[in-house]
């Protein structure tokens, strides 16, 4: 079993987190669909949004992954996006939230 990735999240956000994480799981599939369709503009916007929200919620890795997707989408770099999506999916499988 893969090692868990610990994320410390503010207690103030406890009620928002289940929904936020659920949306991230769904987003991975949406991003994959965009990539398959070559919809880089949609990926740029989605990556930018992920970059903006991740760190604020307590998931700085998501900000980093979002930035990678945004930058790669601007360049139309499908392999980098593919790798980022793999990391995104892996992160979502392994992340374990602690409220502080």
């Amino acid at each position: 079993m893969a090692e868990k990735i610990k994320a410390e999240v503010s207690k103030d956000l406890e009620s928002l987190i289940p929904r936020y994480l659920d949306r991230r799981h769904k987003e991975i599939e949406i991003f994959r669909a965009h990539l398959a369709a070559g919809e880089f503009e949609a990926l740029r916007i989605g990556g930018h949004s992920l970059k903006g929200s991740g760190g604020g919620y307590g998931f700085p890795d998501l900000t980093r992954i979002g930035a990678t997707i945004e930058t790669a989408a601007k360049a139309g770099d499908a392999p980098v996006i593919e790798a980022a999506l793999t990391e995104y999916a892996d992160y979502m499988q392994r992340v374990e939230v602690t409220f502080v």
Partner: protein
Amino acid sequence: MTLHALVVDDSEDFRLLVCQYIAVEWPDAEVTEWDPVTQGEIDDNHDLAKYDVMLLDYVMGKADGLEWLKRFRRRADCPPVIFLTGAGNEQVAVMALKNGAFDYLRKHDLSKARLVEAVRAAMNERKAAEITQRMARTAALSELNRVPEVARVTAGDSQVIEINGYHVIRKIGSGGMSTVYLVTRIEDQQQLVMKILDSKLCEDNEFLMRFIQEYGMISKIESRHIVKIYDQGFTDRHVYIAMEYFANGDLRARIKSGGVTPEQSMDLLGQVASALQSIHEHGIVHRDLKPENIMFRADDSLAIVDFGIAKMISDVNSLTQTGHILGTPYYLSPEQAKGEALDGRSDLYSAGIMLFEMLAKKRPFTATTPIALVNKHINDPIPRLPAELGRYQELIDILMAKSPSARFASAKQLQEYLLKFGK
């Protein structure tokens, strides 16, 4: 005051995050979310005056937040705008500030503390701007009626001061920024002191900010040695703070009467140290500690008053220009005199001057001009107490040390010293 905020961001997740933090801090807040992608632009018919603060994202789909900011800032009803930027967008943040943003926040490391601090500052800014506008309107009306309020207030006619819920008894005094009245709160007949900002200064946002901040700062502090604030507000004609009334006068009067013994001086210093510890823990330097600002209650406990020039230690956006001295020169610390950065140790120096004055019945430094006095704080050796007070010299030497690093590191350390001294 209920907070009304507008959050303009194309990320629903981020809007929710902001709404949540605001709701935790201000449960009554009303937050309007705006998604530029689905709702389009905010047009000129949208009333912005109803918001105390706007949080505006930079990249919103294809929309450019900087362009929106420029457009909003041309409008008279635009509230303070906190610009939201992503990682690595510091240059954008600078451009936003140049284009009139009140502040900026980095989205990727947003925390509740950062958000609340920025929003609170924006609310203060909004409030100050509102008061300025109201005062300007009133001043214009007064001019038309040829009975300018300033003249009526400075004439000392307490009857022209009308604040709902209070009855003005008499004028107590006036300082550089305000006039002080003894009032009765009608609902419970409690006597309070009402400090009313000088009308001329109400036209000046900087002074209004300082006045409002005074209330904000003191209200945060729970200490019996800090003046209790009961109310703060503004009418069309006045900006005011209602605070505790001190029946037993100030320390200046006691020193003048010669009735403070060395033992009492040390006790008073202990109470002052307790007050300073409380305010310094809140990041506030008083900056104007002097006997006139030490007041006594009917039970003879003391409290520090007049935070008019107090300043948050962390406030890098100085309310006073570099080198501009606001403190009373007799109690000014050397670093204050030089216009350098201050921390709580500056107040400890002022406390040392007060202690010297209580013990020796005279001020340690006097001069014929303010400049000469300032130079003495910076350069002159610490005066010696009379021989019979020699046991207090070490304490005076520490408190009045020219270098802050040679003083107590904190008011708490001073209290510990006093405890040992008393044993």
